[in-house]
């Protein structure tokens, strides 16, 4: 694993995520959220899980980001009003980050480097999905169908 690639990717991802959380305009925040997700996919590639990275790009950027920008478009009545930033939330977030980092750095058993492993092929993931994880797979299918129907019913215009 290349440390230069990791540092560049990590800084890129965290910067894009910060932009997504603090930008004033909603559309810019949504687009930098998509950029942050590209960074997370790059992190997955570095960690050797290419299939999960590609699935993330496909599902999150191809679908969830498009959904978010569409919803921003459809709910645009009060744009431009300066809404306040809740500084209490920022304090909580900094506190959470501080405590997590302190506990990570305290745990010495986590200071390990990556062991050599054979590359994870799509065949292995497919075999696992169809043998050990076949029940969760069917349940996720049912869940996605339920979410699809539920979302449709929520936004359907009612017949007067």
């Amino acid at each position: 694993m290349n440390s230069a690639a990791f540092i560049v990717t990590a800084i890129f991802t965290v910067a894009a995520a910060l932009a997504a959380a603090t930008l004033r305009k909603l559309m810019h925040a949504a687009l930098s959220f998509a950029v942050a997700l590209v960074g997370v996919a790059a992190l997955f590639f570095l960690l050797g899980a290419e299939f999960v990275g590609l699935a993330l790009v496909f599902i999150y950027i191809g679908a969830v980001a498009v959904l978010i920008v569409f919803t921003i478009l459809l709910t645009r009545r009060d744009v431009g009003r300066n809404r306040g930033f809740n500084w209490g939330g920022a304090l909580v977030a900094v506190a959470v980050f501080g405590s997590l980092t302190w506990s990570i750095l305290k745990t010495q058993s986590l200071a390990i480097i990556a062991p050599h492993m054979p590359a994870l092929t799509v065949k292995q993931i497919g075999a696992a999905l169809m043998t050990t994880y076949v029940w969760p797979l069917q349940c996720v299918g049912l869940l996605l169908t339920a979410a699809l129907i539920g979302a449709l019913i929520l936004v359907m215009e009612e017949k007067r």
Partner: protein
Amino acid sequence: MSKSTDQVFLNAKQWLLSWLAGSPTWMVQVVSSLINIFTLLAVFLTLFALMSVLERKILARMQNRYGPNRVGPFGLFQPIADGIKMLIKEDIVPMRADKIVHFLAPILIAAVAILTLGVIPYGRNMTPFTIDGGILFFFAVGSATELAVFMAGWGSNNKYSMLGAMRAIAQMISYELPLIISVLPVVMVVGSLTPDRIVAAQAEYTFGLVPRWFVFTPWGAAAFILFFVSGLVESNRTPFDVPEGESEIVAGHMTEYSGFKYATFFMAEYLGMFAVSGLGITLFLGGWHAPVRMLEFIPSYIWFFAKLSALLFVYVWVRGTLPRIRVDQMMNFAWKFMLPLAFTCIIAAAAWHYCRRGARGWLWSFLVIAIVYTALSMLLDTKRKFAPRVYRFAE
């Protein structure tokens, strides 16, 4: 002899890399990737330039006129004139437009189109980047096109652009499903997402004459037609060019773009066409294999580009023949016809595989597709829903 002409580009690249014999491995990898990237860009940008003039000439011939024929022999230097025109045009950005988003949209759409070209096998051992989930990479990166179209429409701060972008995204999302599901039978039968493996699975010939391409099976033919039509829609080509129909919505999401940025959108559309055709050739038409065993001495990349030219000719042919389809007709077609038929192709491929791929498998898969197709055509019949057309003439 034919082996060396087949691998001539690989040998050239190895010779170039031998100049770096003593460098560290990462540098050799980077230079190798850069050589791949530059070759890919050179080939496909030249093909784009050629295609832009050839399309106009072929369309013109279908409409009983000459195309551009003044610049150079038979008008083939027309792209140079077009390029100079696009480059010297003034770059107008609307005053209230969102500058960053407006600037990034054409860059993103062109980058996405070029990225998808990198996983297609162009010849024997000639895939630029071998990724284990190559087909998934293609679709994952291609799905970022929608976001780029939305950025173009929204960043222009223009109601027509926004409307055009919404229509374009609705069209692209609706047809992305049949596109991907029609690829699933091939992936299922081969058992791998790697394009190289899929091409290698179509290598044999029955009786030395008929190749074992997937398009020559019932489910493969149906899936190829679905894939081709969805590819037409994804590149916003006539008859599905509602997003950029000049008579309807000016230029849709590309209205506020002038000069080089418009040329970038144009280039991204054509490169998307090349990428989808290349993927169709890889999945259904046997990749770089020859049609008959006799002709295997012709290099593999020549076969690939011959098939690509045939598919691009069909693209232009369809553009010159069919009128534009209405938006609601297009959506109905996608959700009510193509999606069920795409699911049927999966079942037909499974039937073919489990009858051990013989004549019985052919029969069963053909029956499955024929039954579903007939049922769909009877259920979606619109003749009874609209009144018969009455012609009134001036008296």
